[in-house]
């Protein structure tokens, strides 16, 4: 049905989309996880309340999350160029994707960690656990199923953002859908890319949920 060039292009598109999504999520967690942890523990109900720190992180998260992704993409171009050396292509897209993902992930992590039973944390404190131990051995362990669900949801969101980045030369399936499907009226190619995106989200979702259920020992 499609020529081999088109198929090759689609395969490359899948590859680029996966690359952008996975790399951005990974880097996103590298910064977002600590940020989420800090938000949780510095909150006034947290284990190490620190009003100033909480406020700063809270405001940063809100500001970045308020800026529409496309605007963020454009605003960050100089920064992206500084880090990657160019402002287009899949690798360059990772920079704004991570910037958008970090506060999003931080909020996801924060909400997961908040679910941990305060009694268990108190028990750990009564045993003389330090803040660090409580974070690594209680919070992250007890919240792990919720955290994995968070990763799953994040992957879906970043995938959507990466497709959006396609409009400004980010590469990947989104790029193909815009260039061929939208600008050149090749509806069949657009349909296929959309179906591929749906499949990717579906796969992430299924794997994530299976893993989280498997790791949940509460039943």
């Amino acid at each position: 049905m499609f020529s081999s060039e088109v198929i090759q292009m689609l395969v490359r598109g899948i590859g680029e989309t996966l690359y952008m999504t996975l790399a951005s999520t990974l880097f996103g967690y590298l910064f977002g996880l600590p940020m989420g942890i800090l938000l949780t523990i510095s909150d006034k109900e947290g284990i190490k309340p620190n009003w100033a720190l909480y406020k700063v992180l809270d405001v940063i998260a809100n500001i970045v999350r308020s800026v529409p992704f496309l605007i963020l993409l454009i605003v960050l171009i100089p920064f992206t160029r500084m880090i990657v050396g160019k402002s287009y292509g899949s690798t360059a897209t990772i920079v704004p994707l991570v910037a958008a993902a970090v506060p999003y992930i931080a909020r996801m992590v924060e909400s997961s960690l908040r679910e941990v039973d305060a009694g268990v944390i108190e028990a750990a404190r009564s045993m003389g656990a330090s803040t660090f131990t409580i974070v690594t051995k209680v919070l992250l362990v007890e919240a792990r199923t919720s955290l994995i669900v968070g990763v799953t949801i994040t992957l879906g969101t970043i995938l959507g953002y990466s497709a959006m980045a396609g409009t400004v030369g980010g590469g990947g399936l989104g790029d193909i859908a815009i260039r061929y499907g939208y600008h050149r009226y090749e509806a069949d190619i657009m349909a296929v890319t959309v179906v591929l995106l749906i499949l990717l989200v579906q796969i992430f979702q299924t794997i994530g949920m299976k893993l989280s259920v498997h790791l949940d020992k509460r039943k």
Partner: protein
Amino acid sequence: MAQIEVRHLTKIFTSKDAKVDALKDISLEIEQGDIYGIIGMSGAGKSTLVRCLNYLEKPTKGEVLVDGKELGAMSEKELLKQRKDIAMIFQHFNLLMQKNVVDNVSFPLLIQGVKKKEARRKAKELLGIVGLEEKEQSYPAQLSGGQKQRVAIARALASDPRILLCDEATSALDPQTTASILDLLKDINQRFGITIVIITHQMSVIRKICSRVAIMAQGEIKEHGLVEEIFSHPKTREARELILKDSDGEHGDTAGRTQDRLMEAKKIRIVFSENSSFEPVIANMVLKTGRPVNILRADTKNVGGIAKGEMILGLPDDEKLQKEIEDYITERGLEIEEVTGDV
């Protein structure tokens, strides 16, 4: 020197629009090896008090001394180390739900930097003490309430504590399970000489295992002393209420109505001690005086192996007869006191 010494402890919780005096100038001493009960209704401040004993709650004023060392003077690091000596168990067990039983029990050891293998070996040994060896691979969600509390007790013992704080540890359990957990605590107390502090709102718990008790209400200690002593001679209204409330849900309302009707009659409280509760004193008295008395309330129970009891009698209006009855009772070696409306 007492093992735990609380001096003039005050705790005030301040929120945006209210100030709550959770603890008001509390002083008490708990001896090494004792089982000390702190009883009170919810909101009395007993949970706050017990959290001050390991500084999970920082008191607003006052001092807590454990083995002569003041907790308030310790650095954060010293405090974390001190907590190794003071274990705690909770009403809702507070186990790690994502870890199996043996890992839960190993947890405090891992916190102290014990090697994983050694921690597991000790955990298994402790599970033997609490009778759960065969459950070591189970997860908390698969256990009953009583079993979860046993795991929590094993976990508490892991760090070889010298003090065990129990915060309403049996309140979420049925009476039978409560009894078995209390037996286990008593056993641990005797076997390892661990001082146990029990927070509860159930007098039955105090009666079963405590040797001393403090009665708390409105953030104050109303009365404290030996359990037998408080049971036979409660001095405060709070103590009497707790003793009477114990073991019977049923005389709440009806008793209130009966009392209303008998408001005018003189009421006396008789305290039985030692063996006298097995002697039919009241029946003999009625036979002798030929006048009936109204038994408003009667309660006898076993306190630490000695029969204890009390009764509240409504006496006839006739003052001469009242004296006759009172004399008869005192002659039998029983103590009486007059009680007013709110028994």
